[in-house]
C-alpha cells in the first residue's frame, strides 16, 4: 500500500512538473527563441544592418533617454512617497497608498489618453501651451510624462513594505546621536533600503524601456523623432520588415534577460543580507 502511494505521488509529481515545463516552454521560452531566430534568419549582417538604420538608431537613443530621465525621477518620487507613508502619520495616507497603485490598475492606453486630454491641442492646457509654443503631446516631454506615470509604482511598491518592516528606530537612533536629517537618510535609511531600492529601479527601468500602450498614444509615431523601441518594432512589423522588427525586438529581449539575471542576483544578495541581520 505504502509503495503504491509513493508511486502515485511520483507520477503526480512528474505530471505536474511536465505540465509546468511544457507551459513555460510554450509561452515563455518558445517566443524568446523565435525572436532571436527570426532576427538572425538572414544572418548577422542583416541583423546589424537592421539595427544600424538611422530610424532604429534614433529609437534606441530615444528609449535610453526616456529611461534615463524617468527612472531617476521615480527613484526620487518613490523614496519620498515611501518615506512619507512609513515614517509619518498624516491625513489622507491611505488615499496616497491607493493612488500609488493607480498606474497598475488603469489600462496603459487610458493613462496615455489622460495626458492627451490634459496637454493635447484641444486639452485642458492645450491653448496655453500653444500660446507659449510648448509641445508636450507628440513630443519627447509627453513620452516622458506617460512613462513616469506608468512606472511610478515600481520603486514605491518595493520600498513601502521594506521600510514598514524596518520601522523608524534606526532613524530615531541616528537623530538622538546628533545626526541631521540628511546624514540620517544618507548613512542610515539609504543603506537599509539599498537592495530593495535597486530591485525597484531594475523593474522600473525594464518597464520604462518596454512600455508600449501609454507611449503609443502620446508619441504620434514620428519616425526618427518620437518612436521608442517598442513603437519602432510595431512599425517595422506592420511594414513586413520582419528581420528589422525582430532585430530591434531581440535587443528588448536582451534587456529583459539582463534584468532577470540582475534581479536574481539581487534577490540572492537581499536574502543573504536580511538573513544576516536578523
Amino acid at each position: 500500500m505504502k509503495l503504491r502511494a509513493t508511486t502515485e505521488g511520483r507520477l503526480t509529481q512528474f505530471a505536474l512538473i511536465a505540465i509546468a515545463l511544457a507551459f513555460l516552454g510554450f509561452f515563455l521560452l518558445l517566443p524568446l527563441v523565435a525572436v532571436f531566430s527570426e532576427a538572425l534568419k538572414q544572418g548577422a549582417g542583416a541583423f546589424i544592418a537592421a539595427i544600424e538604420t538611422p530610424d532604429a538608431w534614433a529609437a534606441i537613443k530615444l528609449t535610453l533617454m526616456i529611461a534615463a530621465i524617468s527612472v531617476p525621477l521615480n527613484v526620487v518620487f518613490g523614496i519620498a512617497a515611501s518615506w512619507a507613508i512609513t515614517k509619518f502619520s498624516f491625513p489622507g495616507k491611505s488615499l496616497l497608498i491607493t493612488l500609488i497603485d493607480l498606474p497598475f490598475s488603469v489600462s496603459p492606453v487610458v493613462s496615455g489618453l489622460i495626458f492627451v486630454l490634459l496637454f493635447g491641442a484641444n486639452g485642458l492646457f492645450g491653448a496655453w501651451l500653444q500660446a507659449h509654443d510648448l509641445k508636450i503631446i507628440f513630443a519627447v516631454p509627453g513620452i516622458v510624462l506617460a512613462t513616469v506615470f506608468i512606472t511610478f509604482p515600481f520603486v514605491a511598491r518595493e520600498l513601502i513594505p521594506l521600510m514598514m518592516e524596518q520601522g523608524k528606530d534606526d532613524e530615531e537612533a541616528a537623530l538622538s546621536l546628533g545626526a541631521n536629517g540628511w546624514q540620517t537618510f544618507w548613512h542610515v535609511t539609504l543603506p537599509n533600503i539599498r537592495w530593495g531600492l535597486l530591485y525597484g529601479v531594475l523593474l522600473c527601468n525594464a518597464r520604462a524601456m518596454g512600455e508600449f500602450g501609454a507611449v503609443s498614444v502620446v508619441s504620434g509615431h514620428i519616425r526618427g523623432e518620437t518612436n521608442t523601441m517598442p513603437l519602432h518594432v510595431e512599425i517595422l512589423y506592420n511594414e513586413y520588415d520582419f528581420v528589422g522588427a525582430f532585430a530591434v525586438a531581440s535587443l528588448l529581449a536582451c534587456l529583459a534577460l539582463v534584468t532577470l539575471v540582475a534581479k536574481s542576483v539581487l534577490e540572492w544578495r537581499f536574502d543573504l543580507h536580511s538573513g544576516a541581520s536578523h
Partner: protein
Amino acid sequence: MIKVQNITKRFGDYAALHGIDLEIEDGEFIALLGPSGSGKTTLLRIIAGLEFQDSGEVFFNGDDVSTKKVADRQVGFVFQQYALFRHMTVAENVAFGLTVKKRRDRPSKAAIKERAEELLRLVQLEGLGQRYPGQLSGGQRQRVALARALAIEPKLLLLDEPFGALDAKVRKDLRRWLRDLHKQMGLTSIFVTHDQEEALELADRVVVMDHGKIEQIGTPEEIYMNPATPFVSHFVGETNRIAGNDGEIHFRPHDVDVVTEGGEAVLVDNVFRKGGWWRVEGVLAEAGLVVEFDVDAGFPQPSPGDTILIRPRRSRLFNPEKD
C-alpha cells in the same frame, strides 16, 4: 536636575499622559514602571525629544528644552530592539555620534577610533569592533547600543525596556552589570520597564504609572512596603486582596502567620515549594476568596484538603471612596 512639569499627551482620542510631574536629581537611577499602555514609554520619549507633549514643560538643569529636538538635547537613548545600524561595524556604530558632528566640533579620525575602543572596553566588548551587529548575541548588541549612546557624552541616559528582548539568564547578568556601570559613571539615568523585580532591584527611585498617570514615586522600599494606591500594591509584588468592613484589605503572601486559634480558616487547594517556603494556595472558608501565603518550609508540608488558620502580620486597608 531633570524636571517634568504638567505633561499632557494625546494620540488622537487616546490620552497617553495627563498631568505628569516629576523631578529627578543628578546621578539618580530612575525606573518608570507600569503595565503596557500606562504611558511610561511615551513619557521617556517626551523627555528624550523623540515625541512632543501637547502641553507642559521639560527642564534640563533649569533650561526649558520643551521644544528642542532630540539632536539638541544631548541625551543617550537605548532602544528596546537596539536599533543598531546593521551595515556598519560595531566600532562604526559606536563612533556614529562623533562622525556626524559638524567639522569644527568633530574629533580627528584617530581620536574617534580611540574613543570607540575605549567605550568598547567599558562595555566589555574589546576586540569585537570589526564585527557586524548581526554577528553578536542579544546581550552583546545591547551593550553596543549602550556604548553608542554613551559616545556623545550625554547628560542623561534613557533606556526603553533595556532587557526586554533578552532571555532570563542574560537579563539577570546584564542587569547587575548595568547597575555597577551606573555606580561607576554616576550618569543620571531613566529606564522603562514593566518588570517590577527589575525596577526594585536597579532603581534608586521607582515611578509607578498606570493609565497615563503617576500612581506613586518612591524608593523601592517605600513602593513595596508602603504602596500608596491599590494599583501599586497589586502591581508591585504579590498581594492578596480581601474585602473588609471599611474597604479592601491587601496583604503580602509572606506577611502571614499560621495560628492555632483566632485566625481565618483557609481550605488548602494546592501546595508547592517556593525556595525556602511552602507556597499555599487556598480558599478563605468564610468569604470564598482565593488567597496565597507562605509557610516556612521547616514545618511539615500542608496537603490539599487541610484547613489552616492564618492571620496577616501586616496589611493595608484601601478605602475605595477615599482613593
